[in-house]
Structures are given as structure tokens and as C-alpha cells.
């Protein structure tokens, strides 16, 4: 029973709160889908997590202070989102879900469900967990943030500068605490794949929708093929598909599987389209979120944004947009300098 309650709370904080927290950022859009709400919510929550964790690590604040702060910020954003939704839709329920059932839809969904079941029910042993999950279990056990070495349980001799700028393990610790003290290893190995793997495919679905528009057959065929490519990415341990399928609970894997494709989608939407689908600060939030996930995100996110800025300048000559793109990279640049210099 206790496990059921913890599981329910985990889903509440990983699915319900992000979905509502995304609404305020989309309220100016004429239409919004649940998928967009969910992804926008994660961009906001990851950014809040990064902005809260960095000073609290520096100030050696206990984990419970961060948990309460993040919980309050997330809940406040979600309540505001629910209020916006109710006001905008005149108290009607959630945005309508338009799903065109067809053979290709069934094929794609079946493959994704199979993959989610495999990742959630079975176990993959990854020695990197001794830091990424170990840091979360350690922080929860000691009520500290990056003060105790997860390898041994003793105090750090020197701060792990590579990791403190990208504190995704702290996000794991905080969400575990919010789920009534669910063991971080259970959260990472069961609930994160359950939420983040469909999340990664949601990003791909959005790309498919952008590229194939109203052709629902093509959209689902695209999603099926992407899922199949990920499912058959066991040819090396380096490719993004493999990271997605075997260790999506680690920040770098989530970066490769979902956040970089999401940034790709946002760069197209914000920098290349005639009428930007989203405001420019979505790029800013995506860049900060990439910083939270991994130290690789600190450099890869501005690199990707930079590539699109070049394309934007050469194809549309949109200086204003390119400047906005550049501005969205400033947090990454700042953290990158901190990473190299200190």
C-alpha cells in the first residue's frame, strides 16, 4: 500500500505537475496540445531546478530546503497553469486529444509500449549509477546537496565541479523526497523510464507533426521508424539510441534522447519558421534545462543553437532572431566559463 501511494505521488510529480506547469508558457498560443503542455512544463521545472540548486549547493543548504522550495515553485506554477486553462477554456476540461486511430498508430504505440515495459520491468546494470543514482541516495540519506562523496559516503575533499553545475542527481533526490520518500533507485530505474521514454517519443511525435502536418499515416510511420531505430541501437554503447534505451534515468542519456531533439524542434520552430511557433524564451529554458542534465549539455546546447543561428542568418537573414538565439545561450556560456575556470 505504501509503495502504491509513493508510486502515485511519483506519477503526480512527474506527469501531472509538469503538464499543468507548462500551461502559463503556452497561454498565448491559439491551440495547445497536452504534449506541448507536458514538454513546456519540464522545460520550466528543469530550469527552476537548475536555478535553485546552484546557489543552494554553494550555500550548503540541506536537501529538504531545496525540496520544499522546488515543490512550492512547481505546485504554484501548476496551480497557475490550471487557473489559466480554466479561464481560457471557460472551465472546460483539458485540451481535446485528437488521435486518428489507424494501423500505423497501433504499430507505433505497440512498439513504444513494449519498449517502456522492457525498460521498466527488466533491469539494466550500469556502473555509472554508482555516481548518478548514488549521489541521489546519498543526498537523501544525509540531507545534503553534493557534500558527501557518493562513492564512499565520506565528505568530499574537493567539490566535483564537473557535476555540481549539472545537478540532475539532485533532481532525482528531490523528486524522490516529494514522492513521500520513494527510494531514489526505484524512482530512477522504474518511474523515470516510465515517464521519460514516452517523453522522448513525444518530442519525436512533435517533429513528425511539424514535418508531415495533417498526414496522420506519415506521422505514425515516422514515429514507428524512430522507435525501431532506437530499439535496434544495440550496435554500440555510444549512440544516442542506446543511451535512450538502457539508461534514460541518467542526465546525459536524457539529454541525448529527449532534450537535444527537443532543442532541435524548438530551434526549427523559433529560428527558422516564418512565424515562430513559440516565444524565444523557450530556447532559453531549453538551454538551461540542458545544463541541468549534464555537463555535456552546457556545451552541446549552445553548439546546436549556434548551428541553427547560422542557418537562420543564411536562409532568412533574421538578425533579430539570431540575436535572440544568442541570448538564449548566455546561461550555458556563463556556466561553461565557470566550469573551465574554477
Amino acid at each position: 500500500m505504501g509503495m502504491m501511494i509513493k508510486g502515485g505521488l511519483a506519477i503526480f510529480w512527474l506527469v501531472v505537475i509538469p503538464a499543468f506547469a507548462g500551461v502559463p508558457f503556452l497561454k498565448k498560443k491559439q491551440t495547445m496540445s497536452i504534449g506541448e503542455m507536458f514538454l513546456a512544463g519540464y522545460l520550466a521545472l528543469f530550469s527552476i531546478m537548475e536555478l535553485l540548486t546552484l546557489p543552494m549547493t554553494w550555500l550548503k543548504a540541506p536537501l529538504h530546503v531545496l525540496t520544499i522550495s522546488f515543490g512550492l515553485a512547481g505546485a504554484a506554477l501548476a496551480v497557475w497553469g490550471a487557473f489559466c486553462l480554466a479561464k481560457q477554456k471557460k472551465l472546460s476540461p483539458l485540451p481535446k486529444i485528437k488521435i486518428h486511430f489507424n494501423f500505423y498508430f497501433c504499430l507505433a504505440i505497440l512498439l513504444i509500449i513494449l519498449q517502456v515495459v522492457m525498460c521498466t520491468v527488466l533491469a539494466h546494470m550500469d556502473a555509472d549509477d554508482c555516481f548518478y543514482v548514488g549521489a541521489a541516495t546519498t543526498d537523501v540519506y544525509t540531507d545534503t546537496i553534493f557534500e558527501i562523496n557518493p562513492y564512499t559516503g565520506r565528505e568530499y575533499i574537493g567539490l566535483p565541479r564537473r557535476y555540481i553545475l549539472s545537478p540532475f542527481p539532485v533532481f532525482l533526490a528531490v523528486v524522490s523526497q516529494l514522492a513521500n520518500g520513494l527510494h531514489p533507485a526505484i524512482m530512477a530505474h522504474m518511474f523515470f523510464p516510465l515517464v521519460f521514454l514516452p517523453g522522448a517519443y513525444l518530442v519525436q511525435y512533435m517533429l513528425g507533426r511539424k514535418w508531415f502536418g495533417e498526414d496522420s499515416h506519415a506521422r505514425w510511420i515516422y514515429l514507428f521508424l524512430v522507435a525501431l531505430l532506437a530499439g535496434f541501437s544495440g550496435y554500440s554503447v555510444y549512440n544516442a539510441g542506446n543511451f535512450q534505451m538502457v539508461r534514460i534515468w541518467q542526465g546525459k542519456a536524457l539529454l541525448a534522447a529527449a532534450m537535444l531533439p527537443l532543442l532541435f524542434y524548438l530551434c526549427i520552430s523559433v529560428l527558422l519558421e516564418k512565424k515562430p511557433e513559440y516565444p524565444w524564451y523557450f530556447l532559453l529554458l531549453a538551454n538551461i534545462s540542458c545544463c541541468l542534465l549534464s555537463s555535456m549539455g552546457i556545451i552541446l546546447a549552445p553548439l546546436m543553437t549556434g548551428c541553427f543561428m547560422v542557418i537562420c542568418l543564411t536562409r532568412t537573414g533574421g538578425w533579430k532572431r539570431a540575436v535572440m538565439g544568442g541570448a538564449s545561450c548566455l546561461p550555458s556560456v556563463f556556466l561553461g566559463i565557470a566550469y573551465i575556470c574554477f
Partner: protein
Amino acid sequence: MKELMEQMIAFWNNYWGESLIAWFLLAAVIWLLLFRRKKETTKYMLLYLAVSLFIFFCPFTAKIIQACIGTTVYWRVLWLVPSSPVIAYAMTEFLRERKKLWKPLALAACAVLIVLGGKGIYQAGNYRMVRNYQKVPEEVAGICELVKKDAGDSLYFLAADNYIGPYVRVYDPSIHMMFNREGRGGYGVGPKRLYLEINAPVLNYLNIAAVGKRTYCNYLVVKNPNMDQKKEMERFGYQEVGSAGRYSLYRLGDSADAVKNPVLYPEE
């Protein structure tokens, strides 16, 4: 320069392994250039692909990026290359044109290509069944439960090899480790020596117990010893607590805090 290029090519080859996916990417690009070059999506997609590949292979940008992130993980820059979306996009564009009956057949052909060109995640041995919710090896869960039951609230150090060690604190963060994966976190000569002994290709139980005792390591997790090896462990005061699968747990002295490690008990 030549060395750098060779390194990048090695990264590229390792990234794709023995799969055909890189060739599928090339085929997708050629198909898009031939049949979809006028489409706006194709234009920016291929332009981005070219820019990201240029960043990866250009020695100048590679030098700068490697100075920031290090040489060993430079292959992660390939995560910027949207290989799966480009391949799936080209295949979908190809399939869109097929007539009603041919579409599922052509999709099946594409799926077969991917299956044969790649390697299944499950088939690559990535997943297995375990009974604990934390999803750590059963032997780790068994050892951790044994330690918890035996030590109670005492403070103690535990040492284990590279198979058990990385997951111990994932399962139970109250356990202090002498060192962790690949000896990480183990400071000083003693823990480093113990790490080497406990991970040696042929285990010398006498050496393990001797170094364990010298470094005040309260618990040792070793591969199940035979009768002679058990006696070697006992010679240095290690007593068997129990076993889990292929591993046995040994305690130094009669209780977890019979020997107090000065790191955990600095005042004594």
C-alpha cells in the same frame, strides 16, 4: 593534425559499431537530395546535418571543443547529428508515395532493413530480470541486507570488487565504502592496495585479509572461498557472516564495530 583526424574517425567508427546505420544515413541524404531537395524541411535538415558534421570533423572546432570537454568524451558531439530523425524522415517520405496496399509492405521492408542493419537492445544483452525494485544485481541486494542485519546502527567500512561495489551505495547509502568503482574515492596506499587485491584476476585471500585488516576494513565481500581460503581469511580475524550467490560477506572481529576505523571514529 593527422592524429586528430585519426582519432575522430575512430570515434565515428566506434559510434556506429558494425551496424549499417551510417550507410542508411548516407542513403537517406542521397535520396532526399535527389527526390526532395526542393522541400523546405529537407533544405534546413540537410543544412543542419552538414553543419553539425562539419563541427565534429573540423580539426579547428574539434580542438576547441576537446579543450572544453576533454578528448575521451568527444564522441558525444555526435549526439548533435540527428541520424535517426533524418533516416526516419527519408523513409517516411519514401513510404508516403506508395499506394494503399504497397505502403504496409514497403514499411515492412524498411523495418527489416533497420532490424538487420542494427542490433536489438535486448539481443545485445542489456536487460535481465531481477527481483528487487531498486534494480541492482541480486547479489548486491543480498549482501546489503546481510550487512544491515549484522551491523545494526554501527559505523563501518566495506570493500567489494568492481561487480558488487558500484551498486552497494545505490541500494543502501548508509554503508561506507573503502573505495568504489575502479577504486574511485579510495584515498591513500591501503585502500588502493586493497582495491587491487580484491579485483585481482586470481584472488589471494591471504593478501586480501591482511590488507583489509591493516586498513581497518570492517567488512569484505569476496568471491566464495574454498575451505583453505576460508582459513586464510580467518587467520586475520575475518569471520564469515553469510553469502549471496557467488559472494561471501566477511566481518573483521566479533561485531561490526569490534575494530573501529579512525576515519569513522576520529576521537578514539
